[in-house]
């Protein structure tokens, strides 16, 4: 596992305490897991994502991710309706390890309240939390 200084935390996304990120993109928000999360999990072998059209509240489980070490649940950083999922992860779950913020994105939602983004951490706050 890497040191926090070796991991990437872009300024363009917001962070949840459960190690998901959320990035506004037009009217929608793209969600995935952070570089720290994928590094902790190790090699990811399976990703289960929700159905398109599901509406989920903040903190609700939207899927699971399975690595050679463990199975973890994925929690909604903000609430909203799922309008797209990254189906490429079915065949290539390793994209989450290789590129967690772009090719490894998981779901795209229409947020229930875009202002909920303000409740998430920015890069500095997230790094401070990780250094704990």
């Amino acid at each position, binding site marked *: *596992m890497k040191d926090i200084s070796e991991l990437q935390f872009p300024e363009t996304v917001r962070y949840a305490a459960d190690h998901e990120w959320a990035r506004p993109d037009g009217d929608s928000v793209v969600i995935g897991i952070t570089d720290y999360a994928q590094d902790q999990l190790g090699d990811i*072998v399976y990703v289960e994502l929700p159905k398109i059209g599901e509406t989920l509240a903040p903190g609700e489980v939207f899927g699971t991710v399975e690595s*050679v*070490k*463990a199975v973890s649940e994925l929690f909604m950083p903000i609430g909203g309706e799922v309008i797209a999922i990254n189906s490429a992860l079915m065949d290539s779950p390793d994209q989450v390890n290789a590129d967690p913020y772009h090719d490894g994105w998981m779901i795209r939602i229409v947020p229930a309240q875009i202002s909920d983004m303000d409740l998430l951490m920015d890069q500095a706050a997230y790094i401070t939390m990780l250094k704990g």
Partner: protein
Amino acid sequence: MSDKLGTTGLILNEPLVWERGKPGRTGFSMPSEDVPFSPLAEELVRNDLDWPDLSEVDVVRHYTRLSTWNVSVDAGMYPLGSCTMKYNPKTNERQAGLVGLSDAHPLLPAPLCQGALKLMANLEADLAEITGMNAVSLQPAAGAHGELAGMLIIHACLEHRGERRSKIIIPDTAHGTNPASAALCGYRPVPVKSGPNGILSPDAVKAVMDRDTAGIMITNPNTLGLFEENIREISEIVHFMGGLVYADGANFNAVMGVVNMGCAGVDVMHLNLHKTFSTPHGGGGPGSGPVCVQKHLEPFLPVPRIVMQNGAYGLSRDFPLSIGRLVTFYGHFSVMVRAFSYIRSLGPEGLARASQLAVLNANYIRERLKAFYHLAYDRPCMHECVFSDKKQQAHKISTLDIAKRLMDYGYHPPTIYFPLVVPGALMIEPTETESRDEIDQFVDALIAIAKEAEENPDLLHDAPKTPKMRRLNEVEAARKPCLAG
């Protein structure tokens, strides 16, 4: 240190069974036909079954060679402990092999199997006494089945009271099967975090316990190997709101004859005979997960139940509030015989002594290793102790590398990356049967590995080197499994 336990030796290769043999080779001869030839109905005939053609000696050598690749508790200590399977005393096998027990047909009428029924009745009574509960059903076929039985009993009890509740509290240090058992019964698991000392605080339970919550599933000792000291207070909080307390007894090896779960406020719990009570279960079975209840839940136990009528044992279904039957026949009988043999050969003092030694051994390991490996919770443990790879991370060494290197020293790796509350967990459970010499040898191996991690980390990255198979590509195996046959 004396000679290292792990060594190299001649190991025979063995192909897949389909790659052995030649067409026409056979291991049996059929008697000559003495009835007219009658072809099978066409829809029953299949030609796609790829049966290998093998002689008897082919089959014997195939499985004997494969068996030499195995690690077993009869060959050496392994740190998975009772969580997987502890040492099985051989006298249990003698009892289970007694013809009157091993050949008893499950459909024998009660008057012809009084001995078998008596054994089951006595085992139920012994388990009730050991746990401090009032009544027991031996039906559940394994631990998670016992959990499901417990959840069904809680549901039936609430329904009988005219209540419907939708949630179950499950701490993050409970066994992983608990949420699944609750969900299978229709309950929504409500996770609760353990406190900074690794155990559950009454306040955390109080914060989520309400009248829509059926109760709590608590593993005690928990998966960190720590005793849930607040169990009685937590039980009172749950009971105050009309809920019930379920105890997962998978870690009961630490507390046999020491803790009375009934007095701790537990309403229903299960035991794993195949863990705590020393019965063998290679390859995933057979297990046995008896469910034990307090008096007020007895009417809901599965049927048939063993009863005494007119001085003789019998089976009765006359329990109208019962959750019903859980298995065909009566559960895994030969497992019950072995567990009964274990309980009666140790006796009350022996069982308590076994738990005390299991706890002593784990604490001895904890003390000897804590200077070398980070201890997740630095306090006395029960029958298992949890370390992590925190100290070794500086050398780019992970728990997986430590586990793989342990194989070079002749030990099966311990449980790793569980419990999930400890990142990089390395959980060691020695059990009561290991002598101080055995444990010292194991601890010395782990100390040597900690030194190697600092001085020569590649030894760990490249491990294991002595086993038949080197480090396997676990990612590829999980992503693209290749299943033959």
